């Protein structure tokens, strides 16, 4: 079972869902276009008299493509013309817009397309059947003879647009089991449909939360405690209030908020704050202190997450063994648009503008913080400027903080925006992780024993999602990708240590796979080399699934694996399955002028079932590679003395720049399997493929990320 599966299981049975449903009529009205009497056969499709078709998007759009992908699914079953398609973001409404794999509204685990696939096909097909029926009645012909193509309904010489039929169709009963297309009938699915938001995102007109403005709005900035777990002891407001434009200063549980007439004044006021912090309960250990504790833990077996055969016995009898300790740093998500929300309170109700990733959970948290009923909170979902997991937190930390900031200054709408420093130092990091591995081969060079222990925090423990966190001392999101891996070791054991410290952590693009793929794929590479095996053939021999073998075989063809690299260059390969999708990559690497890997090209093979939009899939592979590479090469958050985060902005939390981005070539495996996600799975194999190439080039195994940490050169 993967973490996603357990997340689903929990959420599906969770109390989060119970008693929160709004009447369907209200949600439909909220999502419907304002004018005309649109045809709204279900929660997802709105056809207006002006012939536009609006798809209600239940997932947050932060670049991974659901606005386009979900609209494509509806448009295809509807046989609409792509040009008539529009989108509207869904209101916060369970169960109407719940993620069917979670049980509540939410985006994560690369599930947007996967959970919506049948739901939206049915929604589109039902609307189509009703349009056909309306046309058949109007023309007095059999419905079976009516055709629909590119938004035109026709029979012989009779033609009608969807808009012309909408009013009649709206009067018909909604078919519960409409006939769906067979894959060979798809016209848009499987094609590079242009992204629905590219124009607005290329000319500056796309609206993000940060762009929302309300009459008489104030801009708010927050100062957080200097160490995690700190609290406000006292605030001297005078200096901040003396800054021109500052209108108020208020302490809330997570920090001190400055309200001002513009952002600059809010930032200046914040800089002028004099706060005495209570750090008695704060995490004040340094990163080095924590790593020592983690290493000591990982040297012991931990709780058994998965095992087969007798790993210890096999290792004791092995012809050759290797041992390795891996260290992975805390990482920030650092989406380009920092966390933000606009909140307007009036008459015991709240309007919220936000790119929420857990729409219902966030609005519930806000309602609780504001002391008003959930029904009184209206979410106006916005485009989000990136997330990588950050905008979804099990305990709704940001939603709560933003609501408390608004509540403390109820006399005006509040635009609450984190600065980049708030973001980098704000916690909710990819956890610090230590892996301890032992592997052994026999005299023939075959791997006979594998022992892997993982030590990391659980970000689900002590949250409303704790039920899917630690079970019997094991958190699946810590070991996923090491446990339940794609390889059939004859004897193996995966151990887990759930560590505790005061640094708040969170899922981060591909969750546990961010580190398990690296440890497994680099250590495996070394063991295969030790046994004289080829990195591709050796992996294929150990693989349990055809789809894993399929992507690895395809990427080997694509990269012409086995050819001699150019002078000063080397190749490395890795394969990892995550969130139901299989991705294999080959990296071509040389040594850059800075002593770090220079990655020239990445070849990718991906199997994500039916490819709804190959262009978006390629884009997500490119994005996963760039995001993965930037962090693997440069990024780490270092807890310095007193537990203070040494980094604060993009000058110290280094991000990939264009000159460091490799060329990317993607092959998508043809499949009739139901679609799985692509937002995360492109990332896990990247860093190990680069590290394997680096070892081939330099002889140096990479045990600590980022590469720039200095132990790898």
């Amino acid at each position, binding site marked *: 079972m993967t973490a996603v599966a357990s997340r689903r299981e929990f959420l599906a049975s969770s109390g989060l869902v119970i008693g929160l449903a709004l009447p369907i009529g209200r949600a439909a009205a909220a999502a419907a276009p304002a004018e005309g009497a649109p045809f709204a056969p279900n929660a997802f499709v709105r056809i207006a008299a002006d012939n536009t078709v609006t798809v209600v998007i239940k997932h947050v759009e*932060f*670049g991974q*493509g659901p606005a386009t992908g979900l609209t494509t699914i509806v448009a295809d079953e509807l046989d609409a013309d792509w040009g008539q398609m529009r989108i509207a973001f869904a209101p916060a409404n369970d169960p109407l817009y719940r993620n069917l794999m979670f049980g509540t509204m939410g985006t994560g685990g690369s599930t947007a397309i996967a959970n919506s696939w049948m739901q939206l096909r049915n929604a589109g097909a039902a609307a189509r059947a009703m349009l056909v029926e309306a046309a058949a009645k109007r023309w007095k012909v059999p419905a079976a003879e009516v055709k629909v193509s590119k938004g035109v309904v026709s029979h012989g010489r009779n033609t009608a647009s969807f808009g012309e039929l909408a009013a009649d169709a709206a009067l018909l009963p909604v078919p519960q089991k409409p006939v769906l297309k067979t894959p060979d009938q798809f016209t848009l699915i499987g094609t590079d449909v*242009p*992204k629905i*938001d*590219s*124009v*607005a*995102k*290329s*000319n*500056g*007109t*796309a609206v*993000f939360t*940060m*762009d929302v403005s309300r009459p008489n709005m104030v*801009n708010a900035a927050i100062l957080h405690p200097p160490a995690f777990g700190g609290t406000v002891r006292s605030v001297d407001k005078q200096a901040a209030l003396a800054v*021109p*434009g500052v209108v108020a200063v208020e302490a809330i549980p997570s920090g001190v908020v400055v309200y001002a007439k*513009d*952002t*600059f*004044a809010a*930032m200046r006021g914040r800089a002028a704050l004099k706060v005495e912090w209570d750090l008695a309960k704060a995490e004040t250990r340094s990163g080095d202190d924590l790593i020592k504790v983690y290493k000591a833990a990982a040297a012991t077996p931990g709780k058994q997450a998965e095992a087969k055969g007798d790993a210890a016995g096999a290792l004791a009898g092995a012809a050759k063994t290797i041992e390795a300790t891996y260290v992975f740093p805390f990482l920030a998500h*650092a*989406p*380009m*648009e*920092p966390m933000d929300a606009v909140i307007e309170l009036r008459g015991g109700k709240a309007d919220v503008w936000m790119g929420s990733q857990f729409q219902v959970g966030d609005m519930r948290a806000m309602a609780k913080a504001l002391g008003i009923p959930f029904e009184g909170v209206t979410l106006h979902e916005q*485009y*989000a*400027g*990136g*997330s*990588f997991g950050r905008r979804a937190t099990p305990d709704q930390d940001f939603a709560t903080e933003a609501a408390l900031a608004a509540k403390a200054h109820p006399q005006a709408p509040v635009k609450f*925006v984190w*600065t*980049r420093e708030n973001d980098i130092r704000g916690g909710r990091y990819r956890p610090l992780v230590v892996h301890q591995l032992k592997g052994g081969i026999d005299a023939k060079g075959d791997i006979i024993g594998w022992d892997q222990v993982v030590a990391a925090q659980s970000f689900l423990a002590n949250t409303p999602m704790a039920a899917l966190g630690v079970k019997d001392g094991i958190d699946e999101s810590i070991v996923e990708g090491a446990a339940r891996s794609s390889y059939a070791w004859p004897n193996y054991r995966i151990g887990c240590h759930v560590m505790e410290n005061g640094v708040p952590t969170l899922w981060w693009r591909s969750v546990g796979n961010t580190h398990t793929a690296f440890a497994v794929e680099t250590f495996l590479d070394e063991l295969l080399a030790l046994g004289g095996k080829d990195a591709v053939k050796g992996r294929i021999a150990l693989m349990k699934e055809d789809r894993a073998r399929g992507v690895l075989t395809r990427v080997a063809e694509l990269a012409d694996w086995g050819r001699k690299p150019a002078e000063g260059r080397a190749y490395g390969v890795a394969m990892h399955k995550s969130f139901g999708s299989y991705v294999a990559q080959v990296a071509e690497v040389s040594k850059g002028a800075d002593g770090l890997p220079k990655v020239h090209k990445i070849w990718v093979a991906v199997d994500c079932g039916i490819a709804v939009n190959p*262009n*978006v899939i390629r*884009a997500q592979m*490119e*994005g996963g*590679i*760039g*995001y993965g*590479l930037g962090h693997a090469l440069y990024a780490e958050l270092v807890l310095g003395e007193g537990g203070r985060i040494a980094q604060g*902005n*993009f*000058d110290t939390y280094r*991000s*990939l*720049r*264009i*000159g460091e*981005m490799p*060329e*990317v070539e993607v092959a998508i495996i043809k499949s009739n399997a139901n679609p799985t996600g692509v937002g995360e799975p492109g990332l896990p194999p990247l860093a190990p493929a680069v590290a394997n190439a680096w070892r081939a080039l330099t002889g140096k195994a990479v045990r600590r990320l980022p590469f720039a940490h200095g132990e790898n050169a």
Partner: protein
Amino acid sequence: MAIEFLLNGTTTSFDGDPDTPLLWVLRDHLKLTGTKYGCGIAQCGACTVHLDGKNRRSCVTPVGTIAGRKVTTIEGVAGKTAEAVKTAWVAIDVPQCGFCQSGQVMSAISLLSAKPKPSDDDIDHGMAGNLCRCATYVRIRQAIHDAAKTLEKTA
């Protein structure tokens, strides 16, 4: 005293603290929100505008220093090069989250204005100041080459 400058071809004045970064004058006071905040220290380029036709990080440009000068934002940028860049951006779906793209587009227009046929190295240098956390860099590079080809054909 109010500070006057030419914004997207229109004389505009700002009556406030001259230390206020141009970014916040544009966003908070003039409601031109296409120009984005990403770091506040000229590290990410999301706030890129053109000052007298050249790239400028508006987050570190006090409005008091631009009196009488010409500011162009994503909302006002026009002409053959701008159209070629925006068209190329859409044609290959460069944006993912889109938040950095106004700055990317502004920098690309600057680059092509200075170097109509940029090499990959020119692009690496000309676009080095613009971060994209979604890593749309492969497509940014391609779109700049595509725009250059379009401009060459219509020259």
